């Protein structure tokens, strides 16, 4: 189909003015991909899909949403009212809003699995260090975008979540108070906060789109890793198109089926994707009994809460994300894939479990037991990275094959 298209006169005209043929060849029909990728390699294309869904639905939501904390009848606000108008009066507004809300959580599911894949098969190791670093930047911007977006409906969790998180910045020495006021646009979370968060919530995905371009470019320079983690012989590669376009399309089918099932039949996901308390309008005089961020931020929230001192907690939370940048240099092993690293394999699986445990602790109301569990998990989170420094001294890796 693509070949036929490329023989049309219109394409020839386009090619002479844009070099389209060379781009299609180098990026698709002649772009070499290892033939042995498993389905864990589908999450990259899925992340791109969800980003697109978020941007498109977001553009339409922004046409109807009003970022104002001005009070309306019954203790509601202009912002909350505008969200309810979208849900009730805008044609298919409910669909667009649920797609966006479920999309936010899906984005993190997909990206966390994408990162887990990278960790398990050593995709962060040379020569893919820059690719990994760009990926970590994407993660941070995503978390920022999600955090800004969560304020917009101006429900109780929006308000108190933003209050708790902006409070953290206040714990930093010297610049803390300045940063906190800069974020809030005042001494407390209020109308100015809502306006700047809306602006940033629109800006961040545009940044994301640009940086994702960089991520894909970096990928296409160093090419995909593979489950064996070895450098690939040219003979063991197949062109991206049609092999991986069709495999990615199948992945998209599976993803969209699950995604649409949730959007149409269980959009709040039992309070996981849209929290129950966020249907109560923001009230700065009434703290909800239990403030928890949405599930995708809870692991980091637990790390924060594991320390008695707020400053230490904030620094640890920052460090837990920042340490990801250094992973390619912390891990000294020459072998990439867990398949040939028996000890690393156990460690990284335990690391995944540890992140899930951290997430669970952060979502639940704090109890002394959960706090201890959270502290142990926090300890292992950091231990994992530093143990990688010395691991090659002890780990006996299995012999690598020459070809896949």
């Amino acid at each position, binding site marked *: 189909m693509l070949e036929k298209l490329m023989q049309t006169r219109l394409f020839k005209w386009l090619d002479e003015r844009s070099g389209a043929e060379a781009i299609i060849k180098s990026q698709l029909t002649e772009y070499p991909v290892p033939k042995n990728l498993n389905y864990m390699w589908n999450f990259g294309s899925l992340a791109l899909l969800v980003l697109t869904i978020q941007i498109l639905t977001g553009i339409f939501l922004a046409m109807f949403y009003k970022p104002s904390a001005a009070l309306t009848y019954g203790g509601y606000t202009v912002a909350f009212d505008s969200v309810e108008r979208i*849900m*009730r009066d805008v044609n298919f507004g409910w*669909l667009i809003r649920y797609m966006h809300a479920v999309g936010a959580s899906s984005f993190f599911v997909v990206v966390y*699995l994408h990162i887990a894949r990278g960790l398990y098969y050593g995709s962060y190791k040379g020569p893919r260090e820059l690719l990994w670093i760009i990926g970590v930047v994407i993660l941070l911007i995503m978390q920022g975008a999600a955090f800004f977006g969560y304020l917009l409906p101006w429900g109780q969790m929006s308000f108190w979540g933003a209050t708790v998180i902006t409070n953290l910045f206040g714990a930093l020495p010297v610049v803390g108070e300045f940063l906190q006021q800069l974020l809030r646009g005042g001494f407390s979370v209020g109308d100015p906060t809502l306006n700047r968060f809306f602006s940033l919530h629109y800006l961040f995905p545009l940044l994301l789109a640009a940086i994702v371009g960089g991520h894909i470019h970096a990928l296409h320079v160093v090419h995909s890793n593979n489950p064996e983690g070895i450098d690939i012989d040219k003979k063991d590669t197949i062109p991206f198109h049609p092999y991986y376009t069709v495999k990615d399309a*199948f992945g998209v*089918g599976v993803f969209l089926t699950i995604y649409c099932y949730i959007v149409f*039949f269980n959009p709040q996901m039992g*309070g996981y994707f849209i929290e*129950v308390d966020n249907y109560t309008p923001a009230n700065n005089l009434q703290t909800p009994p239990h403030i928890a961020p949405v599930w995708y931020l809870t692991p980091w929230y637990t790390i924060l809460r594991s320390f008695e001192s707020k400053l230490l907690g904030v620094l640890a939370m920052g460090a837990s994300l920042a340490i990801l940048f250094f992973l390619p240099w912390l891990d000294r092993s020459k072998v990439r894939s867990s398949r040939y690293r028996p000890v690393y394999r156990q460690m990284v699986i335990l690391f995944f479990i540890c992140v*899930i445990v951290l997430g669970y602790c952060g979502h639940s109301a704090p109890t002394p037991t959960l706090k201890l569990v959270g502290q142990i998990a926090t300890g292992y989170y950091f231990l994992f990275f530093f143990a990688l420094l010395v691991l090659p001294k002890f780990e006996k890796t299995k012999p690598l094959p020459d070809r896949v």
Partner: protein
Amino acid sequence: MKLKSILFAGLMAASLVAVGPAQASEGHGVELKHAKVDTTDREQLRRGLTVFTEVCMGCHSAKYVTYKNLMDYPELALSREEVDELRGDKPLTAGLITDLSPEDAEVSYGKVPPDLSVMANARRGGADYIYSILTGFEHDPEGKIPDGNYNLYFPGNRIAMPDPLSWLDHDEADTEMLEQQAQDVAAFLAFIADPHQNERRALGFWVVGFLIVLTIVLYLLKKAVWADVKH
């Protein structure tokens, strides 16, 4: 190896979701009563609307629902005459707003009754919770909270809402009728919390059905394209 990685992906996804139900059912100790509600049942929704306008609207509003909505939502489909009777001289586009002013409510009950438009989404348990609250007025076993303010299902048990259906010490013979009224109004509130929910599920049936077929076709296509790749 392939199977393993699929298992691994599945496990990760499952563990993210598995904690869901455990959380959702965690209330404040008491298990909620199960309400029989059907948001597609026109009769039940209309009975619920009547309970709402005749009882609850004495104190509560549902400001996001307009009189016009009552005609336009196919699940309710009130006639113009029925709506005119309900609204009196209020405009068609007005929301269902109580005549009780917040100031008076504060004086009478010590609290402003919350708007009920999205209440079914704003509480864990949704319709079950509303049904339980309405039929949860009892005598405080410890005798501390006065009758009419003790509610088995309300967090802390002390509720500022005076028993709206007169459930406490009701006649044995009325139990069924009162339970029905409570379920009907719970159904109505569950409906208005998300008035496009039935349309959503109906459309979802086709969308998900189409996607399943598409995914199967894509899988077969993938297999065909990959047939010549040797492992």
